[in-house]
């Protein structure tokens, strides 16, 4: 009997061990395995470095800069050590020796909080990090981060956009290139998973899994940093000189559609974008619509010549005085009239009545068709995030007065990028190019080159030549002739457009602009300069034109082009 009981006790004992083992080995196996893996393995996320944005000469416009946050673990530091630790940190981080005490008190207060983790300082340099590391302080650590770095300061802010965070706190590019190319720039983070020993050190013969981080791609731009510098400097000077509310300029290579420079003011600091109102973020060159005024005349003239409806020597038989259409009276800008004038002089004198004559010859159907051909009413497909295009009213809504005013650039809205590329078509012999800011996208594996793309052949070579000569005459004989650099053949046209306010045009508020290209016979650049509401003079010939010519003078020198005359 005694043997039986002993056997039973042993049996139950072994049975309970088997049940317990079954529980650990089978029922709880997955949970325990994952817990063991968490203890044995360390996962390290490898952040991808965001791609650089480079000027055309591959110098840096925007890159990534590593920064560190200093944190403390209050519960891991002995109470009597906290003041000492704080003073040692303060000595390294205080720029001013007189502020060490204040800084140390602040750090002590943070370390005295009843928290497990507390941030002590942000954005500390790698040298400061090394100095603190050498102190071997308990409960002090670093967290690596990254910010954007702009060697040229706030230059090209509208072009670049900025790097912010999305709803989950991850870095995300907004506006401009950062927004448009966010996918290419951000890359893909990697993960390293290795077995570690009791001290947390990697075991070399242990398991090791790695997914390598893929750094973001670099963007090489068509933007020439010298031209960018020149236009920014001149626009800043111009906005002050002419008391304008805003100013912008865009320079394009007419042969390729490559954007050589683009700037707008007022601007913002992309590193401190959060200190600026949201209205500052959109790039006016691609997002702001405006009435182009007289700069539009060259396009209407090109359309009429291309359709053989007029010739350069065609005489205007309706230019002897103001024209009445549907209850509206159309006058010239200075109320001077040139009866029987030819079409070259219509452009030279920026004659509104002459353009009404040309517009009537062209007719609404063809006028409307050329709006589309020159790229108005649709986006230019430039590689910037914030591009928008003003709508063109349906053809059925156009009245006679609308055609008349649109023929001299009023009552129709465009963007600067649309305007400059349309004029580039005159400069390059009739090809409407797709504008591109980026020339090349590259990473360590290779590169992708953005090739120039002709969207449409808008006008004949011969017509482009005629309009170019009209624009050269406008520069040499027009209102802005005193500002032009002597000896160079430059094609251009001024524009002064009144701003529509509450259903009527305000005569004192204008958008002054100048569009042109140089050298006229072999254009290296086409440029548009625009001032919003200049107070020194409302006219483009006295504000935008001088700035255009000043920039052109410096660009011709930069391109090593000597005067031809």
């Amino acid at each position, binding site marked *: 009997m005694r043997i039986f009981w002993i056997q039973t006790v042993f049996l139950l004992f072994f049975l309970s061990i088997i049940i317990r083992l079954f529980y650990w080995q089978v029922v709880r196996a997955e949970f325990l395995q994952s817990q063991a893996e968490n203890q044995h393995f360390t996962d390290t996320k490898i952040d991808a470095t965001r791609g650089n944005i480079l000027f055309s000469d591959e110098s840096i416009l925007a890159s990534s800069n590593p920064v560190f946050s200093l944190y403390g673990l209050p519960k891991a530091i002995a109470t009597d050590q906290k003041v000492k630790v704080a003073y040692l940190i303060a000595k390294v981080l205080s720029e001013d020796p007189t502020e060490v005490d204040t800084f140390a008190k602040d750090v002590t207060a943070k370390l005295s909080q009843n928290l497990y983790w507390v941030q002590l300082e942000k954005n500390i340099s790698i040298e400061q990090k090394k100095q603190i590391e050498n102190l071997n302080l308990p409960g002090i650590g670093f967290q690596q981060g990254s910010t954007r770095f702009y060697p040229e300061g706030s230059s090209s802010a509208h072009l670049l956009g900025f790097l912010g965070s999305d709803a989950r706190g991850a870095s995300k590019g907004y506006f401009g290139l950062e927004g448009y190319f966010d996918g290419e720039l951000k890359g893909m983070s990697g993960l390293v998973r290795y077995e570690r020993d009791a001290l947390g*050190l990697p075991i070399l013969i242990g398991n090791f899994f790695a997914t390598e981080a893929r750094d973001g791609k670099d963007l090489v731009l068509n933007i020439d940093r010298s031209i960018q510098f020149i236009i920014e400097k001149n626009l800043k000077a111009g906005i002050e000189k002419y008391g304008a509310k805003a100013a912008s300029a865009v320079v394009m290579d007419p042969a390729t559609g490559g954007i050589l420079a683009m700037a707008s003011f007022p601007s913002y600091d992309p590193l401190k974008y959060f200190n600026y109102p949201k209205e500052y973020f959109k790039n006016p060159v691609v997002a702001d619509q405006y009435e182009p005024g007289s700069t539009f005349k060259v396009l209407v003239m090109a359309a009429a010549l291309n359709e053989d409806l007029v010739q350069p020597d065609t005489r205007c038989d309706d230019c002897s005085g103001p024209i009445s259409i549907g209850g509206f009276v159309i006058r010239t800008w200075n109320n001077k009239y040139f009866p029987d004038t030819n079409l070259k002089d219509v452009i030279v004198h920026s004659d509104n009545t002459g353009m009404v004559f040309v517009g009537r010859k062209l007719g609404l159907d063809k006028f409307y068709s050329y709006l589309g051909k020159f790229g108005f009413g649709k986006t230019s497909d430039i590689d910037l995030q914030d591009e928008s295009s003003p709508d063109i009213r349906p053809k059925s809504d156009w009245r006679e007065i609308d055609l008349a005013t649109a023929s001299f650039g009023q009552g129709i809205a465009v963007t600067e990028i649309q305007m400059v590329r349309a004029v580039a078509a005159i400069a390059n012999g009739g090809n409407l190019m797709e504008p591109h800011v980026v020339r090349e996208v590259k990473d360590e594996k290779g590169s992708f080159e953005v090739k120039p793309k002709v969207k449409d052949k808008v006008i004949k070579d011969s017509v482009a030549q005629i309009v170019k000569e009209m624009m050269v005459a406008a520069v040499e004989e027009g209102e802005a002739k005193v500002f032009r650099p002597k000896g160079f053949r430059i094609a251009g046209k001024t524009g002064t457009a009144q701003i529509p306010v509450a259903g009527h045009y305000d005569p004192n508020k204008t958008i002054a602009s100048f569009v042109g290209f140089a050298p006229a016979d072999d254009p290296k650049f086409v440029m548009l300069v625009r001032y919003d509401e200049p107070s020194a003079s409302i006219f483009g010939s006295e504000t935008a034109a001088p700035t255009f010519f000043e920039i052109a003078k410096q660009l011709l020198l930069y391109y090593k082009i000597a005067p031809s005359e």
Partner: protein
Amino acid sequence: MTIIKKFETTEPKKGFSKRYIVLSIVCLFVLMLVEIWAGNNVVAYGEKFDKLSSIAKTLHLENQILENEIAKYESLNNVASKSAELGFSQAESIQYIR
């Protein structure tokens, strides 16, 4: 008279010889020592590997910071302000030699 010598068969030895057994034990013992030595070294290399990884990471970061510093000094804004400090100014009139 023919003498027929009696042929005595020798019985095959059973199992391994003592020599082989001793040799195997010595080999196993040596291998064990090698394993302990290698394991010990590899553990020490883990620490070295960790330090080297950390140094490589720091050097990579320093390189990035230095590249940015160079870019800052090369920037046109910096060049323009330095040249103005040194008394350089924009040319007033340009002579073209043909």
